[in-house]
Each structure stands twice: as structure tokens, then as C-alpha cells.
């Protein structure tokens, strides 16, 4: 018994030691975990709350997440209500003043960029709408750059001793990222103006960046699964509007997208959506490399 108590006390002491060798980062989504790694390097220890195979709208406030958030020095989330179904509960239960919204330890990517698709009216009859705008902002690499710059400043604020480290790594990342972006933009030139049908409105930022033209969604309304009548109408629209690709994310059910693809003869393309969504999307570079390759391959097959 005594030994048990001692072991427990030792474990508590070890895990609660004030002087952190590294900054504990709780990343709500894999893309921010990857970005925190790019900028923080080995000065940060990153925990990812969700995987690329999980719908970030629908995560449960599991006990393991509460424990991880309690230990965090910095929470990096998308914000814009993407995590509204689980993050508020985690924040209240984690009893960690450092990462409460408004504290320096809470960083929302949505605060760093301009959001698209801000709804003109708020009504749940319109489905799962986000009042602040479309939160899937990480699929425009220019946003990744802006968030990276903000995150580097925040890391430097929280961990002043390593401020120079974060600034230097951010500079390196920004240069490399800009070069990569130019490469992607040149490579993706054939995608400009290509008409696409998407499953959920996940792709607004990618479309905006690459000049893809979204003509319809498979979901009749955000977060609402399609019915037979809606799909029949959609199948008429696909050829009429010259749709070249049907896009869906790795975390989404493929069935509806595959069904539309099969009936219409337009290829359905699964995109990684975030880091870890496909085998090749192992980091942020891989995410965009693989997304563009898959889009180009999809367009190629229709020719």
C-alpha cells in the first residue's frame, strides 16, 4: 500500500514538475500539430487531439483529451466554432487556466486569417452553419503561412527563452513554404476553372486558391446527408454543368460520392484533407503535394 502511494506521488511529482523542458502543445487538428512541429521543432512536444480519419466537427470530449489538455501550455485550434461540439467541455473540465480562450495559451488559427463563406443569415434550417465563416481554412497554403507567422509569435511570447529559435525556424519555414507554393501553383494551373462537386463545404479555401469552381455539394445542406430525390437532381446537374471531379475527404463516408461518380461517369477523388489523410500526406508539404497530384490525376482521366 505504502509503495503504491509512493509510486503514485512520484508519478504526480514527475508529471507536474514546474520547469518544462519543452512546451506542451495540444493541437486540435493534425494540420496545426504539423505546423507547431515545423515552427517549434524539438522545443515543443505536440499532442494531436483528432486524426485525419475523424470528423473534426464531431469529436467526443473523451477523458484522455481532458487529461492532455490539463497538461498543455498551449492549445492550437482552428476556432471559428469548428470545435464547438467538444472543446468548450474540455476547456471547462481540464481546469487549466493557461489555455482558456483569451489567455495567451489559447491560439485560434481563424483569428489570423480572413474567413470565407460568412453566412448572411443564421438559421439551423440551413444545416450545420458556422456563424464566423467557413472554418476549413487550412486548405489555402497562404493561410498556413499567415497562421505560421502568428503561431511563431505566440510561441515566442510563451517561451521567451527560445524566442530566437522560433523566429529563425519560422523564417526558414516561410521561405521554404513560399517556394513550395509557387511550385504548386504552377503545377496546378490546369485546374483553374475546373468545375467540381464536393461532398461537404470543406474545400472552399482550396477552390479559392486553385481557381476550382464548386457547382454543387452532395450534402443538400452542411452536415445533412443527401436523400434519393436530391441525388437524382444532382445527377442531372453533373453533366449539364460540365463537372470534371467529385471531391470528398478521407474522413468522410465514400458511399455517396462513389454513387454519384458511378452514375455520372465523373471520377470521385478522395483528398487527404489534412496531414495523415493519405499515406503520402505525412506533413504539410505532403498534404498539398498529394492533394494536387490527386486532383491532376482526376482531371487527366476525364480527358
Amino acid at each position: 500500500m505504502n509503495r503504491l502511494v509512493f509510486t503514485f506521488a512520484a508519478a504526480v511529482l514527475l508529471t507536474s514538475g514546474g520547469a518544462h523542458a519543452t512546451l506542451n502543445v495540444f493541437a486540435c487538428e493534425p494540420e496545426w500539430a504539423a505546423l507547431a512541429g515545423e515552427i517549434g521543432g524539438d522545443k515543443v512536444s505536440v499532442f494531436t487531439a483528432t486524426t485525419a480519419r475523424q470528423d473534426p466537427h464531431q469529436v467526443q470530449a473523451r477523458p484522455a483529451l481532458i487529461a492532455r489538455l490539463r497538461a498543455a501550455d498551449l492549445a492550437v485550434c482552428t476556432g471559428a466554432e469548428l470545435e464547438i461540439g467538444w472543446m468548450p467541455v474540455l476547456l471547462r473540465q481540464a481546469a487549466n487556466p493557461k489555455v482558456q480562450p483569451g489567455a495567451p495559451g489559447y491560439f485560434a488559427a481563424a483569428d489570423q486569417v480572413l474567413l470565407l463563406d460568412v453566412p448572411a443569415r443564421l438559421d439551423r434550417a440551413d444545416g450545420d452553419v458556422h456563424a464566423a465563416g467557413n472554418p476549413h481554412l487550412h486548405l489555402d497554403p497562404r493561410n498556413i503561412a499567415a497562421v505560421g507567422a502568428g503561431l511563431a509569435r505566440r510561441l515566442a511570447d510563451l517561451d521567451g527563452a527560445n524566442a530566437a529559435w522560433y523566429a529563425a525556424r519560422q523564417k526558414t519555414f516561410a521561405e521554404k513554404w513560399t517556394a513550395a507554393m509557387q511550385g504548386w501553383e504552377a503545377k496546378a494551373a490546369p485546374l483553374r476553372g475546373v468545375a467540381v462537386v464536393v461532398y461537404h463545404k470543406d474545400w472552399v479555401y482550396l477552390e479559392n486558391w486553385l481557381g476550382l469552381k464548386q457547382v454543387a455539394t452532395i450534402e443538400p445542406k452542411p452536415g445533412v446527408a443527401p436523400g434519393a430525390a436530391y441525388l437524382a437532381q444532382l445527377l442531372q446537374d453533373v453533366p449539364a454543368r460540365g463537372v470534371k471531379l467529385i471531391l470528398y475527404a478521407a474522413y468522410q463516408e465514400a458511399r455517396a460520392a462513389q454513387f454519384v461518380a458511378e452514375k455520372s461517369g465523373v471520377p470521385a477523388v478522395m483528398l487527404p484533407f489534412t496531414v495523415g489523410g493519405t499515406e503520402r500526406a505525412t506533413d504539410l508539404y505532403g498534404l498539398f503535394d498529394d492533394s494536387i497530384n490527386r486532383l491532376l490525376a482526376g482531371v487527366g482521366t476525364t480527358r
Partner: protein
Amino acid sequence: MYRPALALVAPFLSLALNMPAAAQDNAALRQEIDLLKQQLQRMEQRLNGAEQTAASAQSQAAQAQQRAAAAPPAASSSASAFNPAIGVVLDGRFGAASRTPAGARVPGFALGDEAGAPRRGFGLGESEVTFSANVDQWLYGNLTLAFEDDAVAVEEAYFQTTALPYGLTVKGGRFFSGIGYINEQHAHAWDFSDQNLPYRVLLNQQLNNDGLQLRYLAPTPFFLEFGGEAARGNTFPGGGESKTAGTLAAFVHAGDDINENSSWRAGVSHVRTKAEDRVTNDGADTFRGRGNLTILDAVYKWAPTGNPASQHLKLQGEYLFRDEGGQFNGLDYQSAAQGFYLQGVYQFAPKWQFALRYDQVQANNDDAAVVAGSVLETFNETARRGTAALTFFTSEFGRFRAQYALEQTRPETEHQLLFQYTITLGAHGAHAY
């Protein structure tokens, strides 16, 4: 394109700076303004960038104009901007049962005022209105009013700290106790239309009290929390007025992920209650004495790749044991009661859930002076029930449920059929695990 946007914003920036607001408000405003400026600068850079197509530049600028146009009202009518989040839960039901609910009994138990059998015919369930918001940088506040028939009751009214160090949280006011697993859940979050038997009988549905709670979340790599509560204890299973705290409770919960698909939580809780004059059975019975209740709870959840929306399974069970002793209607009374429930919920398709539950309670009043025909007479029977429920969700915010139960709480078997709708309007707080 961006210049008009800047020109639009500028007057409001200066207006905002000159507002006679408190110092910290000004600081916060400045921060916001700085953010806005940064955003505008970034936009400017983007617009000047050669890579930007005319089309996307237009959409960006349109966004900025929208923002610029939208920002001033938010700043000038800040009184309503700070309104708490309001959530409404509406619940209605239709019940059919083979026996009349009046005089419903569970052999051997004195039942609290909420522990009766469900009504028959059409009726409203409990309608709820919740207001909640952060009070300041330290506190969060919540008020839940429950409307049942024509009566309004304060279901929860509490503050909770958000910024205490060392993993501590203090909650004060009226709140559902943190004991067990289902005790903290509001009725609209249950997987069945009614509460399980042991909670219904031993806790009068759920333990809800006026008091103070302290929780400590241990800095362990898995979830481990300790909690203690002191409360007034004037409602069942307590009763009467107590000089200090009539009810004391303590609990430990632990939990973790097993893998990407599954997770668990389990706990032990203990509640001590003191009843000065607990009145039950429409005033016919009074009890004076003490009670000790222990709860073991466990829940396991499974969802392929951690996506509960499309498919998930939840297994949940709790075991309750209660010792109660004192004077029942002035006669010596000593009782040992126990009960448990086991339930499984399977979401087999998006929007569809099927749930099964078995529950039972049993009292041993051999050491009590039992008057024949009183509620304490057990007939050596165990009250049992089996329940099946099918739920259809129109969305996260609306659901319809059909539930069938076979209940043996009285000498004869009873069939119950319940149809229920539950809808939520407005802000709907995220659900705990």
C-alpha cells in the same frame, strides 16, 4: 478595392478608441483593432500579390467590406453582445401502460416525489431553458430552469471556476452531483426516456443539491479526478433542514483511450445523507436517520476510427448499494438496498440508435419494524425491468424515440410504451463524455 474598405474602417477605429469605456475594455479594443489592422495589411499584401487572380481578389475584398460593415454594430451595441448563451429543450411524450401509474410502488422502498411511474396519454415532459456564459476571467455561470406542467423549478444555478491553478475547480450553487456516471447528465441527454430503477428509487432520479463542490484533476497522462461535495441535503434521499451540510459526497473517476476506436471511464462514489424529517408517500411516511450510498460506475465507448456520428456503441453500467438506518414513522428501521443497471446503445446508421437496458433494485428490511401493508414491505421481491428504445435523429438538435418496457415493480408484470420527442433550440452546450 481595399482602399474603400480601409476608409470605411478608419472612422470606426477612431470612434472605438474615443469611447468612454473602462481601461481594460480599451486595451481589449486596441488589441482587436490591431488585429483588424493586421488583417487589413495582410489583405493588402495579398491583393498586391501577383499570384492573386482577379476573381479571388474580388471575393476577398468583398469579404473585407462585409467585415468592415459588420464590425461597427457589434462595437456600438455591446450591451446585448454580452448576453448569455440561451438554450431551450422541449420535450413531449405519449405514454401507454397496462396499469394505472397512481399508487405505483417498488416493494420495500419509500419513494421520493419524482420517483413515480410515467404518466399515460399525451403530456409535456420537462421543458428546459438554460442561460450560460463566462462571468469574468475567473468564473463561468449557468442557470437551468425546468418547466413541468405549470411549475417552474430551478434545476441548476451555479458558478464554476475556470482559472484556478493545480487542476482545481470549484462549483457552487445548485447543481447535479458529480457522483456516478449518469447523475450529472440532464434528462434530455439520456439514452432512454426515463431514468434507470436504482437512480429513480435510491436518488429520486438524480442527486441534485445546493452546495459546494471541489474537483481536482490529477496531472497524470490518463484521466484521473477526485471530487468532494458538501450540500444542504434537504431533498430526497436527505430531508428536512440541516444546520450545516446534510449531504456529503466524494468521488474518484479515471478514464483513458484504449485505441483510436475505443475509450472508457470508471469510478467509485460515496454519499452520506442525513434526514431530519424526510416526508414521502404524500406525507404519510416520515423518516429520520442516516444513509450511506456507494456507487460503482463504468462506461465503454466504441466508434470506428473515432467517428461517433456514423456508427458507435456505448456500454454503461452502475451498481448502487445503500445502507439506511434510523426511525421510520417512529419505529426502528434498518435497511440494506442494492440495485444495478446495464445498458447498451448502438448507433447502427447515421441518425438511428437502438438501446437495450436491464435494471433491478431490491431492499432488505428484515432489521426494520415493518408494518404490514406499508411501503417497507418487500414481499421478498426484486423489482426488475427490461427496456428497449429506438431513436431517430432529425439532426443533432432533434430526435424522436419509441420505448417499450416490461416492468416488474409490482406483483404483476406491467407493459409500458412511451413515445417521446426532444428538440433543442438556440445555443446547445457540448455534451460531456
